[in-house]
């Protein structure tokens, strides 16, 4: 029963990783940019929410929609003001600039909030759980996060398939220049893509801030988890990121169950490496070529 419990917790954890991974994947898909600041940009919304909660004295759940709007604007401006200059200039410039943003953001958060762990207090819901039997209980918060991942991925799929902007995302992803020749302002589309990416990670970032604590140094680990979920699931597939997140999450919780919590993350990495070695294209890769 402990093993089943561990697996269930792992599946729910996978929803969180999927929320982080979808944003990374969306940015890569539309502009071929691997955003190394992505992890730090999942930490940022927790601090934005913290400031909002401190200023307004409301339940942190109410801060989520406001933080989403703020992070969308941050993403839009970051893309228009800086990242648009490196899109299309090859991988090297993109990696260096986003790595630079990562370091700057992390240290700015350290400067503003110190390295101490912070938390968002949402009251009783944090500890509520559904008790299935004596040794198997599902926490409400992890369950909500998992369901939100499903809702977000479904919404993103609908957005990509049925809206004009979603269509433009896909067209730009296929062929930037041809999209421009159809009248698409690619600079605007990319900025919206980063905005949407950050809007999505805000949900995961703030929910995690409510569920546990956070500090400015969490970013690199989250970037790596998001990346592993993307690769395991298969690049370009939104449902793949959920599958990848779940595989990673289950590997971590089962690893902790088997070898102790110190080994949990390492087991996750090892599972990732094995999948990379034997199935580098992932499980649900999208295969459309020109």
């Amino acid at each position, binding site marked *: 029963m402990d093993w089943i419990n561990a697996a269930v917790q792992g599946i729910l954890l996978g929803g969180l990783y999927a929320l982080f991974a979808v944003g990374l994947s969306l940015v890569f898909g539309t502009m071929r940019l691997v955003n190394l600041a992505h992890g730090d940009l999942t930490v940022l919304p927790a601090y934005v929410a913290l400031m909002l909660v401190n200023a307004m004295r409301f339940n942190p759940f109410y801060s989520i929609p406001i933080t989403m709007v703020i992070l969308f604007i941050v993403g839009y401006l970051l893309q228009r003001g800086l990242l648009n200059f490196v899109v299309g200039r090859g991988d090297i410039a993109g990696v260096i600039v986003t790595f630079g943003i990562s370091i700057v953001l992390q240290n700015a958060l350290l400067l503003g909030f110190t390295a101490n762990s912070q938390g968002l207090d949402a009251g009783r819901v944090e500890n509520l759980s559904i008790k299935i039997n004596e040794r198997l209980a599902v926490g409400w918060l992890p369950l909500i996060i998992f369901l939100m991942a499903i809702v977000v991925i479904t919404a993103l799929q609908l957005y990509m398939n049925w809206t004009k902007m979603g269509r433009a995302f896909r067209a730009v992803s296929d062929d930037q220049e041809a999209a421009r020749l159809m009248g698409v302002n690619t600079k605007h589309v990319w900025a919206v893509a980063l905005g949407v990416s950050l809007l999505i990670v805000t949900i995961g970032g703030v929910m995690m801030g409510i569920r546990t604590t956070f500090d400015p140094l969490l970013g690199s680990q989250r970037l*790596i988890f998001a*990346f592993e979920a993307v690769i395991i699931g298969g690049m370009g597939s939104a449902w793949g990121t959920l599958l990848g997140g779940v595989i990673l999450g289950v590997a971590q919780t089962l690893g902790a169950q088997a070898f102790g919590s110190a080994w949990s993350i390492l087991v996750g*990495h090892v599972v990732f490496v094995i999948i990379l070695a034997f199935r580098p294209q992932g499980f649900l890769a999208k295969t459309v070529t020109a």
Partner: protein
Amino acid sequence: MNTTAPISETTSKRFEIWVANRTNLYVGLGGLAILVVLILFPFFGGTPWTRRLVDFFALLALAQFWNLMLGYAGLISVGQQGFIGIGSYTLWLFADMLGIHPFISVIFAAIGGAIIALPAAALVFKLKGGYLAIGTWVIAEIMRLIVANIKRTGGGSGVTIQAASKLGTSVRVPGSYWWALAAAVIAIACTYFLLRSRTGLGLKAMRDNDLAAESMGVNIWRSKLYTYVIAGAGCAMVGAIVAIHLLRVQPAAAFSVNWTAYLIFISVIGGVGTIEGPIIGTLIYFVLRETTAKYGEWYFIILGLLAIVVTVWSPAGIYGYVIRKTGFYLFPLQRKVRWLAGNGKRAVVTAGEGGAS
């Protein structure tokens, strides 16, 4: 060293390909003199400055190896801290566990780095570009977690290098100084000769365009592997030197991603793809460190912003800017084609491509 490419032999004296000029000869002699002074430095420089220079050469060597991967193989690694950490712990293993002299153990650390780089390469090379970069980071994290979880290596609190501390300051400081200097010289030499060889040309072509290089018959995978293994060995070697220098090894510090942050910022600010760039970058970094390091986070923020600004608006770095203004290379890596006109006058027609991208 063959300075004329085979092409000039077949076309019988229509043009020659020149690599260096006379000024470079003088620079070379000057460089040799500087090297002699640097070798003798511990005898007159005093311990504090010798210590500082250990840091300087260690960072210069690391930056040069990183630059070798990126500038000449198009490989972007953000995981070199993995090899630095492995080097530190391999040194501890050989020096303290197996009882081999620490200065000899440095060589084993380098070998250890190369051995680990092979399977790591097989894995991360399945990824491309930016995702490859994160892949190297994952490899570094795996190494860190393994070391931090093994009780024998002291876990998270790390180990003290007993064998190195027994050496005493009068032996340890100059010894680590010479090793650091050697690492920097090796790094520069590797970069210089790799690029001047045929493989080097292939790597440069690859940096610009994978497909073009492939059609030239360059085996990209193997070339990438060479630079990755060389850099892995080099970074492990520097990690070992740093361990002797600091006497203490902790997983959080030895495997810190801050190492990579320094390397990237130093190379990028100085100028990626040249030998001179990292040298200038390391100098700038040291000035910044001496003046702003006490402001902690601000120092990283300034470094990060500088790297961003340089990448976006002046991608050739500070040294690239100097080349553009003066056309002078300290280490000439590009080939100049001189057309031999009928009247025997020589005219430099093409300056070749610059070392900076």
